[in-house]
């Protein structure tokens, strides 16, 4: 009765496929609709924050930093309230990470400031003596790719119905029209910084990577909620 399975490579392959696909079907598919619902009041990332998320991905911060606070007292004491599924609804991809060489960042916006991040990204040991994190000075001179971040916002709005405003729409023209809003947001961050080059770049209409990144890091935590939006 198992003869055909051992002799016929086609039936064998089908058999293997069924056995391995079973777990995926049961575990993953049915949960999809439920797990992608945002918690009440969660707002999508602004375009500048998305650009910052791109910097976070590009310099691969998840190699050392998690964004997942587990439900233990030691973790909630250290990082704040434990993470909820709905808080990640606008995270594509998820950035939980798998290793904490550095601390968790899921609510870092609640307890760190722009000024702290600026010092830290320039020279980590200046604010955390003994830190083994490398300095990311190149983020102060590299330009963040706000066009791609804008394209991401358009995509998630059109394809996945993320609630962005009507001013986020496809095409170069729409991007050019939207750009001043991004720059205004970047200027608010740069105003709280002291690095001369960064201020010059923002004044010249360019967004340094570090500004976008700090804007993203500041968004992690309370200011992700509509009501607490940083004005």
């Amino acid at each position, binding site marked *: 009765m198992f003869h055909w399975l051992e*002799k016929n*490579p086609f039936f*064998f*392959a089908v058999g*293997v496929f069924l056995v*391995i696909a*079973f*777990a*995926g079907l049961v*575990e*993953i598919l049915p*949960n999809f609709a439920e*797990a*992608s619902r945002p918690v009440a009041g969660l707002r999508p990332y602004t375009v500048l924050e998305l650009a910052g998320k*791109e910097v*976070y*991905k*590009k*310099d*691969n911060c998840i190699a*050392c930093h998690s964004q*997942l606070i*587990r439900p*233990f*007292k*030691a973790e909630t*004491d*250290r990082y704040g309230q434990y993470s909820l*599924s709905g*808080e*990640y*609804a*606008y*995270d*594509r*991809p*998820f950035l939980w990470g*798998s*290793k*904490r*060489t550095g601390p968790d960042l899921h609510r870092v916006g609640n307890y760190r400031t722009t000024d702290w991040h600026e010092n830290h990204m320039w020279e980590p040991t200046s604010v955390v003596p*003994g*830190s*083994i*994190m*490398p300095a*990311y000075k190149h983020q102060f001179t590299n330009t963040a*790719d706000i*066009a*791609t971040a*804008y*394209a*991401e916002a*358009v*995509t998630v709005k*059109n*394809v996945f119905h993320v609630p962005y405003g009507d001013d986020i729409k*496809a*095409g*170069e023209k729409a991007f050019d029209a939207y750009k001043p809003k991004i720059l205004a947001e970047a200027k608010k961050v740069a105003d709280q910084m002291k690095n001369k080059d960064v201020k010059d770049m923002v004044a010249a209409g360019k967004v340094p990577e570090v500004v976008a990144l700090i804007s993203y890091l500041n968004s992690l935590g309370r200011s992700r909620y509509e009501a607490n939006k940083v004005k």
Partner: protein
Amino acid sequence: MQSNAALEYDYTIAKLYTYTAILFGFVGMLIGTLIAAQLAFPDLNYLLGEYGTFSRLRPLHTNVVIYGFTVSGIFATFYYSAQRVLKVSMAESKFIMFVGKLQFFLYLIAATAMVITELMGYTQSKEYAQMEWPLDLLIVVIWVLWGVAMFALIGIRREKALYISMWYFIACFLGVAMLYLFNNMAVPTYFTSGGVGSIMHSVSMYSGTNDALVQWWWGHNAVAFVFTVPIVGMIYYFLPKESGQSVYSYKLSLLSFWGLMFVYLWAGSHHLLWSTVPDWMQTMGSIFSVVLILPSWGSAINMLLTMKGEWNQLTENPLIKFMVLASTFYMLSTLEGPIQAIKSVNAIAHFTDWIPGHVHDGVLGWVAFMIMAALFHMAPRMFKREIYSKKLIEAQFWLQTTAVVLYFTSMWIAGITQGMMWRAVDEYGNLMYSFIDTVTVLHPYYAIRALAGVLFVTGFVMFAYNMIKTMTSSRELSEEPQFKSPMA
């Protein structure tokens, strides 16, 4: 074929992948050693400007050792052993030869592009699936070509029964295909936004918790179908062939195969314990991880028992040493994994250095040892020369074994120290340590790990030198050795 008498196995493709396995193995392990040293000595982060930080190099390390070294090793051993267990030569079909060559050519392009784009920072930031969508498409083509070559070879086989190694290679092909496709589903933003921004960028089809589930369904099973399944397939061919002993129990090998297939996929959610995925899935992942010990040990014990009554070969033949130690490390890491998947243990172990420690006793002790032994076994047959130096293999064996032991012991201690310090509280219930305390305390262990890396890479250089010498200047053989590989 005009003349059947001249019919020989054709190792063209196997040789090509052998070269890339050696090259990528060296590069990947060198980067690994560098980033290990960076954790102990942060000044090493500044060797290559923005391209040389730990964070940028870490995915490059994992991708080069997985998709460069391991996958090359899998293809090399496949194109070598599949012909032999099917008793059919690749030279018998021009079509299969063409597919094989095309596959290698595209593979080389994809691997080079992978290194360049990841250094530049194009990444999906999903672990072991960093490559952006154009590369993903290329990889799909490469994988399909492999499937075509595999099933075409099976189609013209003389040996009707499929040997157990072939079962594992087929499973590797199917499993990776399914998981890779689903995990890399993404929408390229350039096309949906009317041509704004970078063409390389894409957003995942899944968000948040769903993305995490799909990612670790993939991440865990990349370990299963790249680091376990094909490697088990390898050892089922190379250990019996090198020792001249047939598999201890063929029936056991069949049973462990089906057991492994069924159980492995369930265990993926053990990477997400205490996270926001539903509780029942976490429990399921935990339970199945423990069940997974059975089929894994089934294979490992079967391998060890194959040597029954022939243990003297362990002292005489260094390749047997490599393979026996590989099965032993396989047993160790398939026991360690389920232990870490128990929820209460995971609460301490997750996010710590114990996890890379666990991964490396698997990949260094099991995967790398097995691939190197297989390539050593293939060399005299492919190049018709004896292995250049037995002494060098012996030295390499001890050097690398020491390296693996140093690696996982230091990371065990580091991981548990870190996990305990994160949760330590004083008599009033306040946290005892600030985060940085838990980092600085790890310095000696990071230094030991870096040393282990240096030792392992040195061993790998010895391996590469031995292989190159075997290819070029070793004594020529008049006929193919039957079992034990000849070495000087």
